[in-house]
């Protein structure tokens, strides 16, 4: 039974890292395509494009943070895993879901917004500030989901 609980906890950690990472990869990819299009015609926009392309990458970092938090909580880095019941393992897995799901979806949404913003700076380079704020708004929900995951993980007693 101890092993089963650990499996659920590790599944939660893997979901947080994996899904949020996928969201970021897709988002960065979308923004990158738009950026490559802009730079084909105007290579001077590299700096602004890079900044916007990097924005959807944060979800992957949040997912990784949540995943490591779980591993630390389980004591896996110390070499001796904590005893985890099935109920505790499932609690940890559900606690990871906010950043896993929101990370996936917000990464894609932020990538789309970043691509649109790259289009904005291509036409109006003077509006770079506003162009960054728009995709940054999507970030709020990734941050909130990370906060929720951390609070939920902290409330679980092992």
């Amino acid at each position, binding site marked *: 039974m101890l092993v089963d609980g650990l499996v659920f906890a590790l599944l939660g950690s893997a979901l947080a890292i994996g899904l949020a990472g996928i969201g970021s990869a897709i988002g960065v990819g979308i923004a990158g395509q*738009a950026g490559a*299009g802009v730079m*084909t015609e105007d290579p001077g926009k590299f700096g602004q494009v890079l900044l916007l392309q990097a924005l959807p990458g944060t979800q992957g970092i949040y997912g990784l943070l949540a995943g490591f938090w779980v591993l630390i909580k389980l004591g896996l880095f110390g070499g001796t895993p904590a005893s985890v019941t099935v109920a505790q393992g499932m609690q940890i897995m559900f606690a990871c879901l906010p950043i896993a799901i929101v990370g996936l979806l917000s990464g894609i949404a932020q990538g*789309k917004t970043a*691509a649109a913003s790259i*289009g904005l700076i291509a036409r109006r380079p003077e509006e770079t500030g506003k162009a960054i704020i728009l995709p940054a708004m999507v970030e709020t929900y990734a941050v909130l989901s990370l906060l929720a995951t951390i609070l939920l993980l902290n409330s679980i007693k092992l």
Partner: protein
Amino acid sequence: MNGERDYTYLVGRVRVLERSLLTPRTLDALLRAEDLDQALRIMAEVPYLGEAFQGIVPSLQNIDKILTEHFFGIVSDFTKQKGGADVAGFFLLEFDATALKLAVKHFMAKKPLEKVYPASFDMRKIVRFFSGEGSEYFPEDFAQTLREIQELLETQPGNAQGVEFLCDRFFLKGTYSLANRLGGPLRKWCHLYIIFAYLRGALRARYQERKPDTLRLLYFDNSLLEERELLEFLVISDEKIPEYLEHLGFAFVLPETGIFRNDPYYLAEIERKMDNYLLSSLRQYRWEAFGPEPVFGFLFAKSIDVKNLRILLKGKYFGLEADILRKKLRECYYE
């Protein structure tokens, strides 16, 4: 149809290249230009287009060449990109149909081909095909059109209008199958374009008093317009045309409600209204960040710009008044 994200790269490029599109302000400046030299200096300032106009010898041939090559360069480049083959395919088809017309006309006039018009094929292959100098390979649709032109020229050697209609039919047939591949709003747009092309062809044929057999060469089986509906334009009276257009649902192309005049200026005005309508129906998609519509819209806007620049620069070359030129100009993509 491709996924909407397949066009992200092209939309990015379009966002930069849109700065090369003409605006009402540029058009006004060109209209106010005192002569062709001044107009060319204004053109040299337009981003991503101006370089081609810097230091050119101001002749009609040079202007035509620059405009054609500039637009063809964008179209052929876009067709090589992901998602671009279909979205730029419409414009490449148009180049192909024009090149085909020119090649056949050269062959008919027995003139050597001195200039090559840009297309997806080598125009010299067409001339070699008709003169029987070699067996060339062509895609089936294209080969079919060539055989039809060959048959027409065997029975009616001087029927240049018939040749033109057959080339246009090749373009319209290609557009019809492209419409299904593009899907969504562009499918409807392509269908509208085909109907407008039929109306233009029929009204021009009416003015030139062509026989139904010649106009029939423009027609191919489609679900948009029946052959008898097209041929009707040649037999009804001028007074009945507005009513007939109303019946078909296209009375809005008439410059004056309920009035039709069978003269070339009025026909040119109708064609201008059609171009404006086609452009305005794409304008609503111009700010979309994904999908083929903003890319297609940009390319169509570019083709309208080329038309406007030909009118303006040729007008300046011949010293036409600004007011006369203004009446011929199409609307801009960006107000």
